[in-house]
């Protein structure tokens, strides 16, 4: 029974962390190129809706993932136009983008679900439940493929940013756009590509939330998870591995909050429900002051 409890707990942590990991990577790749991706919440929400609609209409959850990727690219291009080429203030644009996505997704969903019946999409299911053992093989079968894709992306992002030449150039744009430009780099192009990649990952986070967790859509269903991913990047000091750790920590807090109620320690449920946030706060405080890419958030204009 104890093994069963732990197996359930670990698979719940992975389930909760998966959308956060995608979004955290989406924020991280942008900030490493000097762009604050505050619009992560909006991209995630748009991806979540696109994934559900495409999966319902095609009957195939992977088509939902493809649709989310498409929406992510579109969101990235819009953000790139606004924050890289104009360039508008990145924080204000991100906030406005989130608000627009909130309104548009609710409006579109309301239009499409005229009958009043909730859409249930085909989901990306785990091969089977967690069983009674906590082993890599058992867990591999107990989570959806998107969880493993997320973990793979963490590794790939780390390798790209810290073990390749283009990754070094990418980071140099985030540290000093002017110096990168002087060295012959096209800052606009790098930042645009970063925003497209970041929004694509964020939208994939939305797809992981819907198709990999709860295969339906409701208004504002991301519930601030994009912002939690933003905090995870700060906690993780702009490093993919540490950001993953932060996402797992938050997932663990959430899973523990529910299980603590089940264990019945006799406290008010509010105390348990605070757990994920308290854990995150303590972890961030324990990490101390973090310094991000120097040019993150600074608009770049030639000349």
């Amino acid at each position, binding site marked *: 029974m104890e093994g069963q409890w732990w197996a359930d707990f670990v698979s719940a942590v992975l389930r909760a962390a998966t959308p956060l990991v995608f979004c955290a990577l989406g924020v991280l790749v942008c900030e490493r190129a000097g762009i604050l991706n505050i619009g992560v919440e909006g991209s995630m929400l748009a991806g979540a809706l696109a994934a559900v609609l495409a999966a319902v209409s095609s009957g195939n959850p992977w088509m939902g993932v493809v649709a989310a990727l498409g929406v992510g690219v579109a969101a990235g291009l819009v953000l790139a136009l606004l924050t890289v080429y*104009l360039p508008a203030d990145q924080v204000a644009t991100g906030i406005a983008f989130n608000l627009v996505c909130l309104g548009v997704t609710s409006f579109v969903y309301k239009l499409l679900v005229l009958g*009043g019946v909730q859409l249930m999409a085909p989901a990306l299911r785990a091969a089977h439940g967690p069983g009674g053992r906590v082993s890599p093989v058992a867990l591999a079968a107990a989570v959806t493929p998107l969880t493993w894709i997320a973990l793979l992306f963490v590794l790939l992002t780390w390798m790209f940013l810290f073990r390749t030449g283009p990754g070094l150039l990418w980071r140099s744009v985030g540290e000093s756009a002017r110096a990168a430009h002087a060295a012959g780099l096209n800052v606009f192009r790098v930042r645009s590509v970063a925003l497209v990649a970041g929004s694509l990952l964020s939208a994939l986070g939305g797809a992981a939330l819907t198709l990999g967790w709860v295969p339906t859509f*409701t208004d504002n*269903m991301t519930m601030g998870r994009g912002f939690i991913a933003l905090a995870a990047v700060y906690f993780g000091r702009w490093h993919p591995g540490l950001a993953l750790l932060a996402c797992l920590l938050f997932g663990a807090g959430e899973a523990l909050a529910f299980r603590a*109620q*089940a264990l019945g320690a006799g406290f008010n449920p509010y105390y348990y429900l605070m757990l994920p946030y308290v854990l995150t706060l303590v972890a961030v405080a324990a990490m101390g002051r973090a310094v991000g890419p120097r040019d993150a958030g600074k608009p770049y204009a030639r000349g």
Partner: protein
Amino acid sequence: MSKRSAARRVLAGLLVLSLLGLLAGCGGAAKEQKQQPPAQEKPKVKAGIMFSIVNPARAGGWDRADWAGIEALRNEYGWEVTVGEGVPYAQTAATAAGYAEKGYDLVIFPDAGQTEAFREVAPKYPKTWFVMMSMCDNLPNSPRVAAWSPDLYAYGEMVGLVAAKATKSGTIGLIGGVPVPALVTLFSGAIEAAKFVRPDVKVLTYFVGDWVDVAKHRELAALQIQQGADVIFPETGPGTLGCYEAAQAGGAKIVGFAWDMYEDAPKVMLTSVIINKPRMYKDLAEQFMSGKLEKKIVNCGAEYFGLSDFRGSLPEQTVKEIQDLVAKLQKGELPIPVVIHEEIMKK
């Protein structure tokens, strides 16, 4: 410089044009309204209502039941009902005051979370009726206030009867959105009624922490299923969908909250314990239009609650036993003790 300036100008131009288009559209609508001849001799009754969530017609059961009530006011009584959606609790008082300022006859509060606004605004506008359509134990100090207050303990009793009769494992799960006293009352009724039917029943009561996060709702319902619950009653908001999904994946059944929720999850819906909110709204309309509406709290007991069709989810014999128990409950013939389980929400 020139390209970016041009792009900015194009964007600003588009924005201005779209705003002008919107304004023109509004103007057109106003003109159309002016051209319509006066259809009613008597002015329509105007009521304003606000929901804390968006799209109440498709949200959780509570809001859907209210929506059915609003439809009854519009279609059966010809009332003009203005609906505010997604009004945060902090803005409820301002919205309600806005309705009163504009000369609305009634302002309706469908949610006990709006109680503070109900108390704050009603005394400031003594010529407007303010009506609470949710739990209410005392009225604000104003001449034109009323409440239709569902007896949540009795409602919980009906839930408990159904769940205890339907469970095979002997474990039932109750899921609440936010830990508020009203849910302690409801869950207490469910626990006592379930024990009345089946003394060895185990009842799990957990709270999600919000009304809308479907993912969290799914996790909590899945946890209850892991602990043996095969019948789950979620008293939450739009997040309820997560419970349906968990029930479908885990082979459990759901007792729907407040309105017939069958269409949302036909595979898992056992039945729904309905709150007859349309009847509450019709009572209000009848009394208002006949001039008999007075300052009072109407306690809506078990006679305002009922079950939706089981649609073959249980054997006929079990359904009949449940219906007999419910009929007795409505007549007050079931000696279920009233015990409030404060331990659900320990301080």
